[in-house]
């Protein structure tokens, strides 16, 4: 039971970490990575490989799925010197970023590294993304309009 719970929180943490890393700007990710000074030996198990992901929407917004089009994507699987395997799939064609995400994913499988990865890479990236979204929301909020319906003359 305890193990299952741990697994579940481990899955959620890995899911969040990979999502934050995938959404980050390549240059921000690289800058933070360089600051950590981490540099494990990496063996490429698969890729980096360019491909497509079929993007699905839902009819009417919430109904039966349909294909809107395709998104370019890159995936890679690595093994680092300590033996952990990391996976990454990111949108776009930045193979270097994809490989870095996979390496960080592998490093974070190591209990000795996971906190450092969170503190030095994932949390700062999440903050940057949050700031960018907040800026967009504030700029959009300034364009919020209140329409008044005019009373017509005939009454």
């Amino acid at each position: 039971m305890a193990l299952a719970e741990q697994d579940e929180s481990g899955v959620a943490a890995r899911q969040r970490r990979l999502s934050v890393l995938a959404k980050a700007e390549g240059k921000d990710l690289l800058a933070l990575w360089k600051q950590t000074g981490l540099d494990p030996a990496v063996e490429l198990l698969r890729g980096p490989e360019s491909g497509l992901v079929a993007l699905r929407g839902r009819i009417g917004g919430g109904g039966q799925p349909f294909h809107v089009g395709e998104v370019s994507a890159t995936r890679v699987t690595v093994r680092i010197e300590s033996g952990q395997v990391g996976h990454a799939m990111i949108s776009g064609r930045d193979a270097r970023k994809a490989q870095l995400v996979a390496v960080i994913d592998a490093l974070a499988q190591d209990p000795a590294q996971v906190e450092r990865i969170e503190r030095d890479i994932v949390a700062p990236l999440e903050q940057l993304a949050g700031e960018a979204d907040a800026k967009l929301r504030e700029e959009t909020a300034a364009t919020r309009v209140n329409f008044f319906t005019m009373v017509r003359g005939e009454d």
Partner: protein
Amino acid sequence: MYVAVKGGEAAIANAHRLLAARRRGDAQVPGLTLEQIAGQLSLAVDRVMGEGSLYDPELAALAIKQARGDLIEAVFLLRAYRTTLPRFGHSEPIDTGEMIVERRISAIYKDLPGGQLLGPTFDYTHRLLDPALAGDAPLEAPETGVDTGEKVTRVSDILGDEGLIEDDPVTDSKRPVADITRTPMEFPMQRDARLQTLARGDEGFLLALAYSTQRGYARSHPFAGEIRIGEVDVEVMIPELGFAVVIGRVKLTECQMVNQFQGSAKTPPQFTRGYGLVFGQAERKAMAMSLCDRALRAAELGEDITAPAQDEEFVLSHCDNVQSTGFVEHLKLPHYVDFQAELDLVRRMRAEHFASAAKADDETDVAKEAAE
């Protein structure tokens, strides 16, 4: 039909070299960067991604540059590129309700949760050319307002709660999702295949058809229930991990068109809907798509099929501009042998025509002489 020809290699090579020089234009003027195209001609990039059916702003910018700004040629380049790549799989269906909204308007509700957000729109501009843009004067930073954090609820969810509008079509997870890139088109089509076809369809063609429905060719009394533009997360199931992760974000435009009541013995009168979902900021295309989607539901909703926009074979077979341009433009290719055969035929027909005319003349003369 055209036949293979040989020769002309040097002329073709020189033509392509000339094309490259003409594409570049005046060498004294700095060349365009992909960042400039993606950043400053972003709606052209969005259109090429949508009709090219591939979301990748950098590649779409490259295609536009290579095509000298010919957007249909750029769409063609992007479509050709996508055929060279393997398909990793499909995303989880995106949730437009969770969109980071950059623009959201409704023409049917004045006040609605999340508000009317104009965003970066051409609406309410005076459409006067701005000579200042010939230069590169510094701009004011966008004004900011207070983000209330209020959820921008989809209009279809508001109306749906009261039962005044038809629900989203029932989800049957057992039914495979249509994919026109894998299975050839077959009529009649299901709505998922129709929407996939419309999403990559030519904006001009769909716009004209949408306009035709407004002018009376399949009247559908539409209201723009909601248009929203913004970014959504793309989640993909990773088999090696056993769970889905976000691989990035895409910008989309969604249009919910709300149309006149439809009632039957089984359902009370309620509004029906047309749906549009397009890559990037592409409001006109999303609106046209939703009008066409609604018109193409005529059979499902028991309406008479009287107009071109309701004829799915007509609309869906001709809305793809890569297919259209391929067949129209192939007429440029050598048809010499074909044309020779036609020439022979016309010569024979003319010979027969003149011979029979001469014969008829002779007979008339003979008849005249006999009468005299």
